């Protein structure tokens, strides 16, 4: 798993590449927590290069979503494909996240 965060005015882009699973989810937690603490309002998570996700990885992204929303912000997902797309669809998250 590799990630990159980029802020651009009010917008935050978080890119997560590779595998987001029980091994790597704890590594991204602090990054997600920082985005929440800083009350970022417009967050986009780019999963275009995410190859594999498991329920732990989904847990982190859902946690980001719920906490940003609690502060009146929004989390968008872009680039979802392959196995991660199948998981998001199964867990009905494709209905929750605005996917432009």
């Amino acid at each position, binding site marked *: 798993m590799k990630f990159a965060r980029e802020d651009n005015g009010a917008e935050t882009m978080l890119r997560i590449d590779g595998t987001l699973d029980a091994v790597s989810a704890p590594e991204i937690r602090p990054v997600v927590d920082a985005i929440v603490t800083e009350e970022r309002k417009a967050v986009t998570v780019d999963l275009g290069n995410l190859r594999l996700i*498991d329920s732990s990885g989904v847990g982190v992204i859902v946690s980001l979503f719920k906490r940003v929303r609690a502060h009146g912000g929004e989390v968008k997902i872009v680039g979802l494909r392959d196995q991660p797309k*199948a998981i998001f669809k199964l867990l*009905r998250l494709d209905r929750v996240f605005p996917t432009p």
Partner: protein
Amino acid sequence: MIRVRVPGTLAYRNLALRVVAAATKMIGNAECEPSPALEELEAQTVSAVGEAFNNIAIHAYKGVAPGEIDVLIESDAERVVVEMTDTGASFDPSTVAVPELDELPENGMGLFIIRSFMDEVTYAAGPPKNVLRLVKRRAPGPEPRLQDGASEAEVTVETGAKRATADDP
């Protein structure tokens, strides 16, 4: 038949999943043609095995020196069968509730993913060994039976061959 056996810790998850992914692409001893159906089968099987691997490493071997996870894969023209064996704590899958997806849970989705993506899920509790058997059919299965998209496999719970000892859970 392909078999991979690794220590029951998350560090080996990726390695085991790579073997499973490669195995789904074999029919008997020949590699099959790439296709969207094959990609879907691979994604679903790898997802299910990944969740099961997590559960063994995190729950079955919780608080004890981890034993091994033994993964057996049989793949033919009809189906992929994966058998995962551990020597850790047993559990009763029938007591695990279906997650309330509308409430956006942050955990408790593993077994749901396994049941939804697989056509058959059987758990035989030990001791001495817990065996989770997953079957994924290659041919398109029956239509989804759930009201809401996902088609869940039935879970049969078997009781493993029990040893006649007093320390059985």
